[in-house]
């Protein structure tokens, strides 16, 4: 099987690492060769963060380059605009519609672009969901990551049971029910 590439993009502190861990566990359970690449350190302090997840029979490069991503899973809409060039022709963008202002916008040095979803939809196949609202519906704003994984799961060829098993293995027991609910809400959205 050819290598499939997923990029998870967002803002430091949004829980993107848990999403990639979960995805890694699902893919590993499905028997693929898997590579995950993340950047720690400076980029976590509220900066733009990117994680690459790649799987297939044999994965070489751990990174995803421009025009290579089959899926981009974005936690913040401005980040979707920033990274859209990494999407392959025919790839899918799944994006949270939540906005987190970066410092240049806060200081007034730059404006937060408007109508990003519409503009991105003209460039690619886009699924936009208000993952924060769904996460809150599930019981915690922190579950945005699992909601988005739920949205992604519908588009990937992996049985639902495998996703649920990976969630059980990845999240702490006391948050399991909340996360399962977040996953279902995501899976049925968009």
């Amino acid at each position, binding site marked *: 099987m050819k290598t499939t590439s997923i990029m998870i993009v967002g*803002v*430091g*502190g949004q829980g993107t690492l848990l999403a990639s861990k979960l995805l*890694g*566990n699902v893919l*590993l359970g499905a028997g693929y*060769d*898997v*590579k*995950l*690449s*993340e*950047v*720690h*350190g*400076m*980029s*976590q*302090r*509220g*900066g*733009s963060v990117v994680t690459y997840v790649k799987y297939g029979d044999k*994965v*070489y*490069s*751990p*990174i995803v*380059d*421009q*025009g*290579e991503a089959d899926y981009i899973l974005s936690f913040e809409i*401005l*980040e979707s*605009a*920033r990274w*859209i*060039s*990494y*999407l*392959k*022709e025919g790839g899918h963008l799944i994006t949270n519609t939540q906005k*987190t*202002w*970066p*410092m*240049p*916008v*806060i*200081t*007034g*040095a*730059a*404006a*937060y*672009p408007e109508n990003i979803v519409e*503009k*991105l939809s003209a*460039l*690619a196949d886009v699924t936009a969901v208000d993952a924060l609202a769904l996460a809150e519906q599930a019981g915690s*704003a922190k579950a945005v990551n699992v909601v988005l994984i739920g949205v992604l799961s519908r588009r990937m060829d992996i049985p639902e049971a495998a996703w649920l098993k990976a969630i059980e293995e990845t999240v702490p027991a006391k948050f399991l029910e909340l996360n399962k609910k977040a996953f279902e809400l995501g899976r049925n959205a968009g």
Partner: protein
Amino acid sequence: MKKLMLGNQAVARGLWEAGCRFVSSYPGTPSTEITEQAALYDEIYAEWAPNEKVAAESAVGASLAGARSFCAMKHVGFNVAADPLFTASYIGVNGGMVVCVADDPGMHSSQNEQDSRHYAIAAKLPMLEPSDSGECAAFVGEAYELSERFDTPVMLRTCTRVAHSQSLVKLHERDEKALKPYEKTPQKYVAAPAISVKRHVVVEQRMEELRQLAETTPLNRVEMGDTAVGFVTSGTCYLYVKEAFPDASVLKLGLVNPMPVQKIRDFAAKVDRLIVVEELDGVIEAHLRANGIRVDGGKDLFGPLGELSQNKLRAAMGAALPKFRTYDEAVPGRPPVMCPGCPHRGLFTVLSKLKLTVLGDIGCYTLGSGAPLNAVDAVLCMGASIGMAHGFTKMLGEDAARKSVAVIGDSTFMHSGITGVVNLAYNKSIATVLVLDNSITGMTGHQQNPTTGLTLQNEETYPIRIEDVCRAAGIERVRVVDPQDMAATEAAIREELAADAPSVIIVRRPCALLKYVKHNPPLSIDPDKCKGCRSCMKIGCPAIRFTDKKASIDPTICVGCGLCEQMCKFDAFEGGARA
């Protein structure tokens, strides 16, 4: 059994499997998790040293004692550890010793982009370079074998993409190694001139033997494919080559110092074009050229800057690039910022207000250089703030001394700030030093340090007091302030700047991300009272926004620290500690 592991986690696993007993390191991205992970194995004694030099010296001591020992550091950490390691090359080892150095091409979280391979060559130490997590674990074992067989410390070079990528690792059992008996051997271990003269001969012989080994070791392997192009490469670059040109011939170097010249020569003879793919400097390329091997492309194609990638390779080689579309409007950048509630914010707001010259240092507080605080004038390397402030104020005199400060974190102070303070007292400086004590090594992700009273394993230990250290070093003016109280902080700074003696102000409040730090409910702003003066925006808090001529607070990230409220002249803030 195979497991998905971070490169750093795999290095730790490799240490455990190879019977390593001793790990001492100082944190530094992207090397930090190796030591944190090694500490989880009962058979390994692991610790945070105050800096890389002490870590390396401790690892040498453990090796003399007969243990397989290890230390890890980021690339610039090797600068600090270079002194012991250059001579450790002469005295050799008893138990095997491995030093991991993690480079950061692309500078994801570093102040420079130096290439550690130069160190291996200069210190005459063998160096291995893994490409993925599987090799990280396996190469540690190989490194210990080489270390004991050739009586030398061995370097393991990783980079961000190896250290912080996860891939599959084959797990093995631990190969328990008994301590090798220590025997007094001054003719080997005492690096004094008469002895070192003889040891240098041994070092050169050893390198010659290693050069021969390089020709035959399976660490260096040839994968013959299409012979139109042959790539010589190592580390992550090997993966980029395989991704972009899966059918090409490749010579993958696992042992990058010394290099197998004959093997490469033979490979070159079999391919039409020989291309060297390496990140940063042209180390392999220069070596091949010096040995008269034809190189048809290298740094002329790829340049010395940043990381490579499969697309960069494709572009440089004239191959087709995947198609993509770009968002055609300007997308504002998203630089890292101090977290909501960060204790550094209050201090930098004061420094920015006072318009001081700030000789900065390395840590989360380097973020005080960004907009809107723009408070930092210079940053060099860990510990440099105090020396820079000394030289700066000596040359510009008293007036400048009254308008400049050094700023340094608690971990950085312990790492390499103390000698700077000794110098201030000794050489009659009147500089003012601010030690930002947030009770943790923040930037690298919360490691304990000698001031925190806890070890790597979170066991209680003696908490070294920065004020005692400064007083013992001869600084009489030492005081403590809470940066949460900006008025008091400002007053203290003004007083110490005016003093005719060197002074240290310890600016003390724990990092807002520490588990034991309690937060207040979020603040809110009464839109009727807000006059839109933007005073609260000056602190650069990511939780404050400004729309329709009014400030407002994002309650999902505000931790109620109340700094913004201290900026407001119109009493517009509500909630927070009051709620």
